[in-house]
């Protein structure tokens, strides 16, 4: 983008930057190794003169001095600081959560440990039926483990999906032998000789488990920002340009809370698309081309052979309309909030997903009545919207 200054990338994980999505899918299945996960080859960073300080932890942001302090006591000055500290897994605060074979999944190190722990196991308990829990359940059942998913809420993926989508995926998992326990918590993890043997449920039942995956969500890594006096509200607070109250500090991705044109209030999104697009937005601003961040949120989740794609923010929709038949295995659910089209979930129907992304980006109006018409067709609406542009 033409930024002329020196760039230093600091990360507390060992090794070069890598992408996380395959960690809960292809990597666990042995289809991708660590090298295939890398985002850029080492030679790329050298050619671009980007200094990569991996395995390096920042302990403080000293805003007055405009430098960061590292764990070895040294400092690195900045003209501009971009916080992309992401999130960390929420801990399940129950006895036994530190037994061997009680694992969580976020980093490559986590995934390597999980992959090794799965070898030779015949069953697993997954605590949490969000995206990570569901993707892991699909992998585990695919590898022949008997998986039981324990979820505190009433259904799967409740936070971010519609009941229609949740129930469809639940049925697909059940057909592959996965057991679901809803409205159930885990009050303890039992073990023998320091190794997990099962979980204790909130209703008192015991479920045997040779492996326990804790997938109960994440918390944003806001501590550095907070200690430096920056506002924090679920994430590091930024404005529509992804800038904090400090003109020399931006925040992006999973750790950043910002206003959005796509939903009321402040949002913190956990997705690759949000991380990548917010990064590009800040890079453009630093290279002299500022613009408010307005990108349409989108997301995908692969569970077994099924691909779920979500365009827009649909979790709090007030009306929903189906396109196609769930029984066919290819269908979408359009989402409206108080009569306004806000997005869609698509299952094995990428053309619908991409059409909805285009409609949202163009701000095309669509009412529930229009969408319910017998001759309604998304592709036609996209063409009309393009013609009108």
């Amino acid at each position, binding site marked *: 983008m033409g930024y002329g200054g020196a760039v230093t990338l600091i990360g507390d994980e060992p090794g070069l930057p890598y992408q996380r999505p395959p960690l809960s899918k292809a990597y666990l299945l042995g289809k991708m190794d660590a090298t295939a996960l890398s*985002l*850029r080859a080492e030679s790329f960073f050298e050619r671009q003169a980007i200094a990569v300080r991996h395995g390096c932890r920042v302990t403080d942001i000293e805003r007055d001095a405009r430098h960061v302090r590292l764990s070895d006591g040294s400092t690195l000055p900045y003209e501009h600081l971009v916080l992309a500290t992401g999130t960390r897994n929420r801990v399940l605060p129950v006895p036994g959560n530190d037994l061997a074979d009680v694992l969580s999944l976020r980093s490559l190190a986590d995934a390597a440990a999980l992959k090794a722990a799965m070898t030779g196991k015949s069953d697993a308990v997954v605590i949490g039926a969000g995206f990570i829990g569901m993707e892991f359940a699909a992998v585990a059942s695919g590898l022949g483990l008997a998986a039981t998913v324990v979820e505190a809420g009433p259904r799967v993926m409740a936070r971010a999906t519609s009941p229609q989508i949740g129930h469809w995926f639940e049925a697909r998992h059940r057909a592959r032998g996965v057991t679901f326990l809803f409205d159930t918590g885990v009050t303890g993890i039992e073990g023998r000789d320091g190794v997990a043997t099962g979980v204790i449920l909130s209703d008192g039942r015991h479920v045997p488990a040779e492996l326990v995956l804790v997938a109960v969500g994440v918390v944003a890594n806001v501590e550095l920002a907070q200690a430096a006096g920056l506002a924090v509200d679920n994430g590091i607070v930024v404005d529509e340009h992804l800038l904090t109250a400090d003109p020399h500090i931006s925040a992006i991705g999973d750790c950043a809370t910002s206003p959005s044109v796509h939903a009321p209030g402040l949002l913190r999104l956990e997705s690759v698309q949000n991380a990548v697009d917010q990064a590009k937005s800040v890079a453009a601003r630093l290279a002299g081309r500022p613009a408010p961040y307005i990108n349409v949120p989108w997301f995908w989740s692969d569970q077994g052979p099924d*691909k779920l794609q979500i365009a827009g923010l649909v979790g709090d929709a007030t009306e929903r309309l189906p396109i196609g038949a769930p029984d066919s295995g290819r269908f979408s659910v359009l989402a409206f909030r108080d009569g306004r089209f806000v997005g869609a979930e698509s299952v*094995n129907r*990428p*053309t619908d*997903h991409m059409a909805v992304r285009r409609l949202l980006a163009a701000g095309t109006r669509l009412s529930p009545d229009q969408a319910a018409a017998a001759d309604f067709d998304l592709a036609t609406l996209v063409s009309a919207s393009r013609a009108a542009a």
Partner: protein
Amino acid sequence: MPNVTYVQPNGETQTINAAFGASVMHAATSNGVPGIEAECGGACSCATCHVYVDEAWLDRLPPMGEDEEGMLECTAAERRPNSRLSCQISMDDELDGLVVRTPETQS
């Protein structure tokens, strides 16, 4: 290690030595070859790694799956008979010398 050559719209080319099994997409993005965005990192979920495969190679590629077929309907640049998603093409010795052209746009 098999080679893959990327031809840009302006005619510039880059030849990358790909790791065995690496996707044509990853070989490009990993080495900073322009013209391939790969927003989803190779999960067949974004249609921004679209390439036009050189005619001589088209029939030697592994066949297209349903996911790729669906996503190819959604590319920003015109879909042509030789359009493929580069995240779905894995490099091996049989594809040594593969040539692909990057489109004018990915978004």
